[in-house]
């Protein structure tokens, strides 16, 4: 069996005060805690650093608010790839594989996992150590690849997903756009204005543990 790899995240980079463990349980990050060691399910530690760096260029933390790093987007992506989706359990994968007309969309056999491994090879292990400008140049060069498009899509998903999936840590993504969470009391009332209620996650609302699909099968 593969040795378990860990991603080490400095605690102060995480946006909210809530942190979701591998088992999906929320816990408080105390100010004293210097770093978090998160067990990885799919990536190696080096790969996780590369993906973290790339997501941070896609959705940076900057003067307009927190970004992919604070939302722990990497944890979302790691779990998605480790689960059945990453293995293409929800895609029709019988052959023959043939390129077809553009109207037929992606007819290529690479699974999301394979797409990431191919993309990571393009970026190289040193990507995380490069300057932001250099990283942007490298990403621009691969903008049209399946990998980049998937990475971009999943960065957005990891920013704004329910925290039960590992991303949107502390619900900072939802705070950024004023999304209140899956509450049943809208009745069309405007969620707009200065006094936004703090968002609530599905587990907070239902009062019970909710398992993401990536944790099944």
């Amino acid at each position, binding site marked *: 069996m593969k040795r378990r790899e860990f991603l080490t995240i400095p605690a102060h980079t995480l946006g909210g005060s809530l942190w979701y463990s591998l088992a999906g349980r929320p816990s408080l990050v105390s100010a004293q805690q210097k770093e978090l060691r998160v067990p990885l399910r799919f990536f190696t530690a080096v790969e996780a650093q590369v993906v973290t760096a790339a997501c941070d260029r896609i*959705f940076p933390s900057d003067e*307009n608010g927190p970004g992919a790093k604070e939302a722990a987007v990497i944890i979302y992506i790691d779990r998605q790839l480790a689960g059945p989706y990453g293995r293409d359990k*929800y895609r029709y994968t019988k052959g023959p594989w043939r390129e077809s007309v553009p109207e037929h969309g992606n007819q290529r056999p690479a699974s999301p996992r394979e797409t990431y491994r191919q993309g990571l090879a393009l970026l190289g292990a040193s990507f995380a150590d490069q300057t932001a400008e250099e990283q942007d140049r490298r990403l621009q060069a691969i903008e049209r690849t399946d990998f980049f498009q998937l990475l971009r899509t999943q960065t*957005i998903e990891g920013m704004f997903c329910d925290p039960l999936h590992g991303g949107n840590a502390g619900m900072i993504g939802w705070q950024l756009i004023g999304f209140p969470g*899956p509450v*049943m009391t809208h*009745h069309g009332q405007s969620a*707009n204005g200065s006094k936004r209620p703090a968002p609530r996650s599905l587990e907070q609302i239902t009062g019970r543990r909710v398992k993401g699909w990536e944790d099944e099968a």
Partner: protein
Amino acid sequence: MHWGGVETWHGRRSLLTLKKVDVVIAGGGWTGLATAKEITTRTALEVVVLERGAARSVSEYSANMDEVDYSIRMRMLQNIAEETLTHRHTIRDTAAPVRQWGHARIGTGTGGGGEHWAGVANRYPADTFVLATALRERFGTAKLPEHLSVQDWAFTWNDIEPYYTRVEEMMGIGGKAGNIQGRKIEGGNIFEGPRSKEYPVGPHRKTGGMAQFETAARQLGYHPYNRPAATLPFDYKNPDGIQRPACAYCGYCAMYGCMIGSKAQPTNLLMPILRRRKSFTLRNGCWVRRIKHQNGRAEGVVYMDSQGQEVFQPADLVVAGAFTPNNVRLLLMSKIGVPYDPLTGQGTLGKNFTHQLSGGADLQLIHKQPMGEGMRAGGQGMSVSDFDGFNGIENETGILRGGTFTGGGGGSGLPIASFGAMPAGAAPRNWGSQWKKATLEYHDRIAGAPTFEAEHLAYKHNYLDLDPTYTDKWGDPLLRTTIDWTEHEQRVRAFAARVSAKMAREMAAVSGAKVIEGGGRGAGRRTGRYQTSAYATSHLHGGAIMGDSPANSVVNSYLQHWHLSNLWVVGASAFPQAGATNPTITSLSITLRACDALINRYLKHPGALA
């Protein structure tokens, strides 16, 4: 033993033959369970429903309000890895499988697509049911495209109207009538066919966007109405005594089961009744693969059960309620009827495959402030039917039929789906700091132009058959769709884009929003060809169509198979062509009409009804 002609298919493993039942139904969605309810509550017959997906109940839906698993991974849909469709544009092309859910979505599990539908519940315009006649009368046969294969429905508005009323009362459709017994009523859809009575429930409240659409439409001289919806606007108790609470506008609607049971779903309207009937059995995890038949009679169905055991369930009556694609595929695989040949026009099985047409202007409205409308219910919206059917197309050359425009919303409101809308060119690329800044600046400020849904006429070259290459998880051939848009659909879409743009500009004038080009619903469809990669609608019709003779159809107007009088094929597979709006209440109406004929006539005198 005769296996409907497929001798090689069933494996070496022994086939378990069960005790014969009165009725076996393939498919436990809207139509299959509605049929089961009619039969078990009105007769003493024993009914078994075979549903390939899992059991479902309303109580499990509270934990489903999760955009990643349900909107993005599409957790409620049938797992496409196990079964999909293939598509080619013409008979000269090689079909490719739909590998990830794209242009249409197919349900599974108890309730089928009826659990995660959006609840849009318009009736079809009255002349839909006599469309072939209406087109001939208006244009003359010589002026119609030669490859058109539109047919009449083998009944008329007066035949279906009572069933529409029954379905609306069962579901508690919220809306406002526009035509009661010929009396036109402002505020409703004045172009609808004459209704026997008002909707059972009032319409949804109007969001700010809906009010803008309404004002704009009025100013243009159109007749806006609040779109009828199955997402209960007010508390309601239906004639079966089933009580449901009003919608809470949670926004997790299409692609989700309703957590509080407001949306009309088979699990909250049909299962509570069926569960109490001793004569009803639902078997989940059972994939029907063949309808067994001999000497012009269906003998039952062969299926794989959840343990992988192959089972033969004999029955006196067989009902296929497996939704359009699988109704047709089951008939093809079971060698029931003559497959349609587009070159000769011979055969009926698989012909007249249609897929509701959609479109709209490639425009967006940019509001000065966030709209702050929160979430919407499925189906909620304002529509105009001023261009439905023959309405408003007098001056358009080459357009045979129009469609319905709907507007007034700002996207789904869910955080991932609604994220990132901005005017073209607002950021140099679609990632990075400048893009992030623009996404936040424009968040919740962009609304689309009114959307358009229209009839899709049937053509000789659009049809269904079995794919020669690709198979499902059992090794059975997939259903192959051969379909493309014609010049007519391109013209209708161009016309719709113009009307939608006109309405969007008027809405902008009303609301003070700015109109910008690009990014609207027309985007991504620029090739104009039929595509399977992006969502269009889940409304697939035809292939086992009804008609007035076995020469032009698979079933009669009671959805009874022309050649096997104890086989009934219910649902939208019987639509001769797609109607202008969403299909479910029409699909259920013809199914209830079929049940009446089956119970009141067939059971008394078994045989062909016609």
